[in-house]
């Protein structure tokens, strides 16, 4: 009997024990309590345990815990930490809401101020928050996320004031720029001085420059993934902004409260009006330049498991110059315009407590047109255009096997249509089109998986594979891209990481210049010109102190293969009718260096300092006699400092008035350009007998990019006054670009026996007013 009782007790204990260890899943979303906006990159931790999860770009998380009472710590930068206790008896779908902390924004580069990052294998990754974008000083006070990204280690501008990103010495087209998951092929307004991303629409962004997740492909060096606001689910709100260069207006609110929301934002420049007025006063009307953009989004919370997003973006730039001289009969009339249109329908669905999927159907269109009217009646003209559209269907699945094991997988299918260089010539009677049959159609199906495994308390690993096929002109290019990231937590607070990514690129931007538009041209791989590929290797160490001092160092080496470049003497839009394939050459490149990043994210003074030591070289058979040469984006030293200091705060008549000062300093080693510094005696044309003009001398260029421009540096200041009452606020921003008026060299040229230096950005003050209502 005794034995029997003991047996029953043991069985009972086992049952109880098993019951106590039963695992349950808590999954759901983390959102802003006021707007219902889902928070990307927020963290959720089980209190007293080192188990946590990070929300994906849809604000979704999934975490496993034991049945019974659990306490969750939910946090996000700029929001008050929330500790939520729950008695959980079964799998639970839940939404956590966080209150904005209403404090002055921190230096919000999340990369290393987050314990989750320190412990994860992710490296060379930076999250930039919208609040940060508005505090970094910029040219003419126009907050711009691309300019903020240029402050990060290993990321630099292509040229002063330009929006394009050169990541680790690569060209701008080697960075995949996504807006709500849709590729944006041109990010430049105003010839690159502004990006197409209105700062009012941003909800988050992540830059990956190493250890790229398998979900991303199609570019050689990096990915910049930008998300837009979903719209306030609870209350109507809006904002407007008036700056020196442009103004914007945004509205958001619920169409059906807590069910359907909208977000709408429009921006335009004043430049066209200013130009028109100034010319009118001088009885001229020769130059017109304008740009605008519109963002719109609908967000429908169908039920707890399903959500639909419909996003739309379009923007356009147009530049026109007319010089009609009725006396001389001369007529110069040309127009350049370019723009993007993107739209995407996304469906978030929670299949089960462990499986989340996002399916997107997207369309992206880029058009660039150059038109030169030969007569005033527009009967004769030359027109060239570059046109690219991209229709993509993709699904990204996230399967949470356990807290130590997550499996991501998905597919993507893109259909692209590209016309690299169609040229039309029209006179009164005829229309002649060159390259009109060069529309290139391509299909790019791809599959991927990524296994995120926590091997033990110290070691984590992401291992993935992306396989794609590029079908063009009856030719198939099969490509496999392994990805691997490892982290080893040495001891608190040190972690070391390493990663490898293989990348392929099927679209290329041919560029003679770093201006951005309109002389850059998108082309695709063809049966003659194959895809480019790269290998990206990185190792790094990370130090994270609890009190907000973080430090990291990364070392990288990247090799690029079968990249293309114009051959010598090539120009944008050849009028000869020959294909762009005839005037490009293929070659290789290598980029290597070290990046160091230090930041302080707590206390009154927030700052970060980044330093990069880097090399970037290219080698093409048909250029520079086949010898390697420094790439135009090779910057040996890069030092960037950003600081933000809240000066004082006042509480008056229920209003919270805060004054803060931000400053940024950028130092870059001079970039490279090709410049003949010598000339030498030449020979006549064969049998010419000097009957026709020929050249007495030849310019001597010893090698491509033989001249390094002087070091580039500028200091910028921004003074911010924010007057807040509840959720409404007014903000005044006073900025000075290039405080000490250092004229950085844009380029040199020779004229009248002298070398001239051209600079574009002297001391430039500006003011911007923003009102949130």
């Amino acid at each position, binding site marked *: 009997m005794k034995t029997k009782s003991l047996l029953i007790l043991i069985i009972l204990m086992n049952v109880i024990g098993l019951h106590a260890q039963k695992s349950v899943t808590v999954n759901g979303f983390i959102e802003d309590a006021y707007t219902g906006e889902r928070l990307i990159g927020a963290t959720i931790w089980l209190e007293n345990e080192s188990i946590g999860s990070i929300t994906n770009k849809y604000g979704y998380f999934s975490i496993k815990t034991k049945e019974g009472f659990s306490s969750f710590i939910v946090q996000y930068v700029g929001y008050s930490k929330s500790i939520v206790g729950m008695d959980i008896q079964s799998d639970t779908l839940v939404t956590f809401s966080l209150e904005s902390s209403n404090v002055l924004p921190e230096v919000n580069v999340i990369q290393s101020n987050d314990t989750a990052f320190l412990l994860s294998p992710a490296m060379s990754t930076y999250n930039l928050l919208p609040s940060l974008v508005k505090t970094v000083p910029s040219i003419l006070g126009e907050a711009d996320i691309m300019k903020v990204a240029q402050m990060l280690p290993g990321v630099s501008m292509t040229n002063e004031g330009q929006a394009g990103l050169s990541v680790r010495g690569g060209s701008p087209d080697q960075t995949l720029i996504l807006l709500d998951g849709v590729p944006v092929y041109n990010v430049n307004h105003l010839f690159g001085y502004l990006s197409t991303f209105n700062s009012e629409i941003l909800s988050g962004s992540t830059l990956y420059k190493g250890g790229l997740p398998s979900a991303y492909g199609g570019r050689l060096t990096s990915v910049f993934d930008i998300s837009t606001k979903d719209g306030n689910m609870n209350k109507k709100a809006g904002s407007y902004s008036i700056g020196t260069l442009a103004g914007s207006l945004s509205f958001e609110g619920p169409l059906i409260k807590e069910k359907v929301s909208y977000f709408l934002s429009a921006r335009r420049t004043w430049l066209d009006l200013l130009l028109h007025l100034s010319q009118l006063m001088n009885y001229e009307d020769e130059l017109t330049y304008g740009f605008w953009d519109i963002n719109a989004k609908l967000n429908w919370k169908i039920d707890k498991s399903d959500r639909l997003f419909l996003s739309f973006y379009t923007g356009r730039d147009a530049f026109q110059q007319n010089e009609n001289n009725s006396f001389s009969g001369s007529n110069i009339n040309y127009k350049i315009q370019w723009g993007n249109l993107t739209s995407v329908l996304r469906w978030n669905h929670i299949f089960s407590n462990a499986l989340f999927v996002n399916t997107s159907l997207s369309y992206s269109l880029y058009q660039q047109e150059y038109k030169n009217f030969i007569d005033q009646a527009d009967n004769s003209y030359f027109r060239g255009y570059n046109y690219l559209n991209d229709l993509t269907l993709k699904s990204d699945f996230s399967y949470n096997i356990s807290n130590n094991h997550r499996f991501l997988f998905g597919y993507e299918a893109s259909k692209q249509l590209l016309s690299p260089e169609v040229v039309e010539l029209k006179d009164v009677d005829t229309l002649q089109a*060159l390259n009109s049959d060069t529309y290139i159609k391509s299909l790019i199906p791809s599959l991927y998986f990524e296994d995120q495994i926590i091997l033990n308390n110290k070691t984590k690993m992401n291992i993935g594979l992306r396989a794609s096929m590029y079908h063009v002109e009856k030719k198939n290019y099969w490509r496999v891209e392994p990805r691997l990231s490892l982290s080893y937590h040495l001891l608190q607070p040190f972690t070391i990481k390493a990663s490898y990514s293989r990348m392929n690129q099927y679209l290329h931007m041919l560029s003679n210049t770093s201006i951005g538009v309109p002389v850059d041209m998108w082309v695709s791989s063809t049966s003659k010109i194959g895809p480019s590929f790269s290998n990206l290797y990185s190792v790094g160490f990370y130090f994270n102190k609890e009190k907000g001092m973080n430090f990291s160092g990364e070392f990288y080496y990247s090799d690029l293969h079968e990249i293309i470049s114009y051959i010598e003497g090539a120009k944008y839009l050849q009028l000869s009718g020959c294909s762009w394939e005839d005037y490009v050459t293929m070659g290789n490149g290598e980029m290597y260096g070290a990046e160091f990043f230090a930041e302080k994210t707590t206390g009154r003074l927030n700052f970060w300092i980044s330093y990069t030591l880097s090399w970037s070289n290219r080698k093409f058979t048909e250029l520079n006699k086949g010898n390697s040469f420094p790439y135009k984006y090779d910057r040996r030293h890069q030092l960037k400092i950003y600081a933000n200091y809240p000066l004082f705060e006042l509480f008056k008549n229920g209003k919270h008035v805060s004054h803060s000062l931000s400053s940024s300093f950028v130092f870059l080693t001079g970039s490279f350009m090709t410049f003949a510094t010598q000339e030498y005696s030449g020979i006549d044309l064969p049998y010419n007998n000097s009957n026709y003009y020929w050249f007495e001398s030849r310019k001597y260029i010893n090698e491509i990019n033989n001249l390094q421009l002087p070091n580039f540096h500028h200091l910028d200041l921004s003074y911010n006054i924010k007057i807040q009452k509840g959720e409404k606020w007014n903000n005044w921003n006073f900025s000075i670009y290039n405080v000490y008026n250092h004229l950085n060299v844009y380029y040199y040229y020779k004229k009248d026996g002298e070398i001239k230096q051209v600079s574009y950005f002297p001391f430039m003050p500006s003011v911007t007013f923003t009102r949130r209502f």
Partner: protein
Amino acid sequence: MKNQFLFIVVLILFSDCTQNAEIDVSYHNERIPTLNCVLYSDRDSIIADLSFSRSIISSEPFEKIDGAKIELFEDSVSVGIFKKLKSGHYLLNYLPNPGCSYTIEASTGEIYLSANVKMPSSVEYKLVRIDTLYNISNFQFNPGRHKDSNLWLSAFYYSQDSDSTESKTMLGGIYSNSLFLDQFNRSIDSWDRFSFLYDKYLKVLPVDTLSVVNISFGLMGQSKYEVAVLAISNDLSAYMKSTILAFNSDMFIDESPLNYSSVQIHSNIEGGIGIFGAINYSSKIFSRL
């Protein structure tokens, strides 16, 4: 005041600050010896030019190099030493032979330059005049199978000078729309025709024996003209190409050098820069119909 404000805004946005600059050219200041010499199959006097390069901002003439010994070798055997002329050039009286290899060496106490070239062999070809309409004469050109890909066509007309001596002048207006024309002939303002700089030359691709290139010339009023076939050595052809590309780039670059790919002029001179080339000339003379 309002007007001034608007102008300031516009100026800030659209004007650049241009100023004179002193660039660090210390590593470019070295004077580079230059040697230029072309061998012609129909000329028995060979001119060589030896000089130093100059700074890009200098307006001084190129400094000739005096006291140099310049020697020409045919298939490794010396055929003579150039003599210095009053003009500063160097002269050697010698008729090069098609198919032979030549080496030129120029030296002083400080410099030593050398280069090699092979005089292209004579090209067999057929040139048939089809018709002449108005001032346009049309031909069929069949270059046969030729190894040398640098085959150029040109034309000359004859005229009498005041002292009754006959002289020939290069014709303009040579063009073709043949598939067998080198892509390089294409120029910016002739999308449906092919020609090489001022319509003075056509460059023909290597073609098989059956291929025919249709060419046309714009004729002058004279009664006699000559169609020339120039077989040009590889280096000289590359030199001519790069020169014209550089010229085109310079023409459009003007004050905005960012928009065009820069061009390095081809050189085959060891120890310096310049060109050592060879041209095998053959021609047919036609009377105007």
